[in-house]
């Protein structure tokens, strides 16, 4: 029996973690992730969970403690945002390279300077090559659902990679929504307990983190790449089982109107919600527009994106982060690489938007759709990288 609770995005994450039998949480508060840690620490205080909550002095220490705990075979969660993720950066690589299946909520906030606490994806995009599976969600419901699935994906012996579940700062983290939650027993049954393949155990000693030079390091990295490449099988399997349990189906990407769309927008996170609403009203006026929202950003859903864009004539790629000095934003670079690799000739342009929490309004999105329709008609891209919402 599922019930509906009023939860913020952060609250939904904390609630999901509460239900997932997590052994250790080591976290440091940072706006706008604070609610996750705050609410979870209340669960600990009230004795609602058996979790060992480790108060640490920084995010670097938080991830270090998570790595240690995870290596003992514990189920581990943490959460951070922005500068916190940046401070964790070196430990992110260690967590994934030591194959620690940690789940982390990342509340996407921009990186200083100037200091700003609002949403964009530059924090996670700055660490996108850290070898973690990366999920982006559109609303609090998806945050709740993906956290639960994330433990199953991460801890699967065929994967053993950490997972970040990314949710937009304030837009999701602090907005109250109705979230359909499962009963504790249902979640418990779904996630079970972690069954570690290898763990630190005095009775059967292993060495973790030994020096590994030119003779073996490359092989270790190649193995890590393969784990990521093979993870889609597990992700699909977990999505299927979650759909059976909840009726809420997830996949690598969500599409809207793509069956007959002539042009489309592809974007991550909460913006997809606005884009779908705009697409709906434009489609009612006979404009064939569609939306593609990758839930899974790493591993990049090449196959699924190629399949969905087969018949469109123009595509706008929305990036809520800029890769300064690169030809495009991070998502656009991935999309263009995918198209080139598959030999697909498609008119693509990049929209950089929403930096530091600047709103992406329905009017902005409608203008992007109209420009995409124009490009589909003329084949002329006036601005390959367009900044939407910035004052000239």
């Amino acid at each position, binding site marked *: 029996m599922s019930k509906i609770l009023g939860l913020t995005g952060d609250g939904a994450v904390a609630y999901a973690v509460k239900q997932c039998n997590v052994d250790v949480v080591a976290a440091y508060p940072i706006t706008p992730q604070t609610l996750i840690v705050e609410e979870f620490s209340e669960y600990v205080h009230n004795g609602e969970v058996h979790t060992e909550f480790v108060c640490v002095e920084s995010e670097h220490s938080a991830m270090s403690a998570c790595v240690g705990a995870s290596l003992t075979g514990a189920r581990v969660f943490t959460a951070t945002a922005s500068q916190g993720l940046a401070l964790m950066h070196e430990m992110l690589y260690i967590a994934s*390279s*030591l*194959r620690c299946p940690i789940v982390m909520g990342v509340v996407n906030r921009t990186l200083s300077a100037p200091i700003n606490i609002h949403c964009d994806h530059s924090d996670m995009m700055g660490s996108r090559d850290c070898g973690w599976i990366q999920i982006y969600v559109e609303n609090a419901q998806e945050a709740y659902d993906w956290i639960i699935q994330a433990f199953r994906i991460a801890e699967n012996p065929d994967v*053993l990679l950490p997972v970040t579940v990314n949710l937009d700062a304030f837009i999701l983290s602090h907005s109250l929504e109705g979230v359909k939650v499962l009963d504790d027993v249902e979640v418990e049954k779904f996630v079970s307990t972690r069954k570690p*393949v*290898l763990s630190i155990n005095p009775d059967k*000693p*292993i*060495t*973790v*983190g*030994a020096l*590994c030079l030119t*003779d*073996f*390091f*490359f*092989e*270790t990295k*190649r*193995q890590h790449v*393969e*784990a990521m490449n093979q993870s889609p099988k597990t992700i699909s399997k977990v999505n299927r089982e979650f759909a059976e349990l909840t009726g809420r189906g997830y996949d690598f990407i969500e599409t809207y109107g793509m069956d007959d769309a002539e042009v489309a927008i592809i974007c991550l996170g909460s913006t997809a919600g606005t884009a779908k609403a705009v697409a709906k009203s434009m489609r009612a006026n006979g404009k064939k527009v569609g939306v593609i929202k990758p839930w899974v950003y790493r591993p990049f859903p090449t196959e699924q994106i190629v399949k969905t864009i087969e018949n469109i004539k123009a595509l706008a790629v929305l990036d809520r982060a800029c890769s300064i000095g690169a030809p495009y934003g991070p998502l656009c670079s991935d999309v263009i690489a995918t198209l080139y690799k598959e030999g697909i000739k498609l008119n693509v342009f990049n929209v950089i938007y929403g930096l530091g929490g600047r709103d992406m309004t329905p009017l902005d999105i409608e203008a992007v759709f109209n420009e995409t329709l124009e490009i589909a008609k003329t084949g002329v891209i006036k601005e390959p990288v367009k900044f939407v919402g910035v004052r000239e």
Partner: protein
Amino acid sequence: MRRRKELSEESKPGWKSIPIGGILLEPGSAIKYKTGDWRTFRPVIDKEKCTNCLLCGSYCPDGAIIREEKNVAVNYEYCKGCGICANECPVKAISMVEERR
């Protein structure tokens, strides 16, 4: 240029067969890691001068000074050639000789 095979990379296990995450499954395996080929200078002990005081062994960071029946010797499989032994020897019995391979 030496070919890859001659560098003996081929004889080591590939990524498909090694444990994940660089984990070592057996304890005490550091002994299998022969660090002698890091050396650019080799310590050579002059047995005439050496008094077998073993100070070199006390200072050696790698435990590469060994005791033979009558004298002190160097285990060249592990000696990295740091030269601390030569520096500390009170009777200057150890000289560092350039390795030529």
